[in-house]
């Protein structure tokens, strides 16, 4: 009798310890995802701050491009307002396309291309674009790790209260336009 009670107590202690470790592991995974997302957020904000400067600089040299400039400003405002991975992904892809359109136009204005201000902004935006790409990669890696952790048995028994994390997709306009050939 005593032995049976001891075994039961022992088993329940083991079960509780297991629950705690799984729970803590899931919390850690969720924090990693949050952390990685805030990294992306920092870079997106950086880009939102840079774009108005770029628009101002280009305006000084290329007055006839107001349509493109308006498009960039509109895309930027939409990106600022976007919330959640799906919305942010769509809005930021549009902003990327709009900014690269603006850089393409700048090719026609030698004075603009040679201005120190523009060169500096171009480097900053290129770097920010890269950072967003690299931070997104890191974020998606952490999302995949967390979702695997969450769905695998026996963790899945405990993981009910943990929402599935969402990947961030940023497809450039060029990528979307390329026809996919399937065999």
């Amino acid at each position, binding site marked *: 009798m005593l032995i049976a009670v001891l075994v039961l107590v022992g088993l329940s202690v083991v079960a509780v310890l297991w629950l705690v470790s799984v729970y803590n592991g899931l919390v850690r995974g969720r924090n990693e995802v949050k952390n990685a997302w805030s990294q992306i957020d920092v870079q997106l904000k950086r880009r939102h701050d840079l774009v108005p400067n770029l628009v101002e600089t280009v305006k000084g040299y290329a007055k006839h491009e107001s349509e493109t400039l308006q498009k960039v400003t509109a895309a930027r405002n939409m990106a600022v307002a976007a919330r959640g991975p799906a919305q942010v992904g769509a809005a930021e892809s549009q902003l990327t396309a709009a900014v*690269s359109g603006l850089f393409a136009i700048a090719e026609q204005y030698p004075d603009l291309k040679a201005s120190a201000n523009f060169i*500096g902004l*171009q*480097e900053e935006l290129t770097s920010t674009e*890269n950072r967003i*790409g690299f931070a997104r990669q890191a974020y998606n890696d952490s999302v*995949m790790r967390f979702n695997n952790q969450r769905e695998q048995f026996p963790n899945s028994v405990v993981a009910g209260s943990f929402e599935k994390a969402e990947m961030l997709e940023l497809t450039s306009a060029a990528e979307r336009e390329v026809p996919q050939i399937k065999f």
Partner: protein
Amino acid sequence: MWEQIASNQTRSAVVVASVGALLVTTGLALGAVFAGSGEGAMGGAVVALLLWLILWMVSASSGDKILLALHGAQEVRKGDHPILVNVVEEMAIAAVLPKCPRVFVVDDPSPNAFATGTSPDNAAVTVTTGLLRILNRDELQGVVAHEIGHVKNRDVKLMATAGIMVGAIVILAEMGRRAMWYGGFRRSRSSSKDDGGQAILMIVAPLMLILAPISAEFLYLALSRRREYLADASGALFTRYPEGLASALEKLEAGTSTPFAHASAATAPMYIAAPRAMSASGEAGSLFSTHPPIRERVHILRSMGGRADVAAYEAAYRGVKGESAVGAQTLAASRPVAVREASAGAGSTAEVDRHRAASNALLSASGYGTVTCSCGATLKIPPSLAGRLTECLRCGRRLPELPS
């Protein structure tokens, strides 16, 4: 690269211990040669052991500072060279480092780069001005990613520690050999008692002094070569653009014909490409070269088949070398990563602009201020003249205040 980190920690222990053992053996031999007795040998071993402990402590606590000081490296901030600092920050994000490494520039026309630091929290990346002059943005990113790969794989501390120890052995053995040459063997007073042992000691000790430094260097170099491949794999993954690193390595190979004034035998394995001083003495691919041949590294990077992940590097490495480079656990965690496009305008920066940016980085990192006069002249004012030079050297007009 978790496996690599874990295996690095075991390896560091093994290397540090075996180089330590070699050091003690060298001490034994040195003691025997100097004193010509068993007690002398023991004394030599104790001295060597103490030296080893001191060196270990120094290199662990401030090895990176010593190395940076040896190279006369100047710390670079954002305004000094925006592209370089941006690229380092990008790679720190890609590698998910806890903190962005500090950035240094060395004034040397030979293109090269290295990483220092005791952990990913306090790492530093150093490049030469020669490197900044010849590489475009994507290539620079490849080189920086390779160095960050060393940081991420925990190579940096091990290489610095091992390098300083090997240096100590080489110096000790050299001392012993010279003592033998000029002083001859000192005869023990109690030679009647243990003549046989004495004779053996006298034959073995000089042999030891010749073999110890060679085997120490051998250990060290074998460690460093595989690390270069793994750092290349990390570099390709972080940039998602293996071509950047490949074309940078090609330019480096062409550029290392310019001798690297700051390189020495002890620091050679740290650089991304073997400095001239080393590659001239050993043939490519020989046991004593610190780096794998660049052509092979480039070939592997270019056969990754449009992918940038570690598994693709492993497949390419296997295709070229017929063996495995990456651990199984790392491979299992690898997922396919597609190569990105070349960054826009990567090749457009004219060479003259890169030259100017490299020199400006060094000047402004050394405290030079830049002032543009209304006549269009740009003056770079050294810190010693700050506040004293008030008139433009070209037109004689009053200069605007130095921005502080």
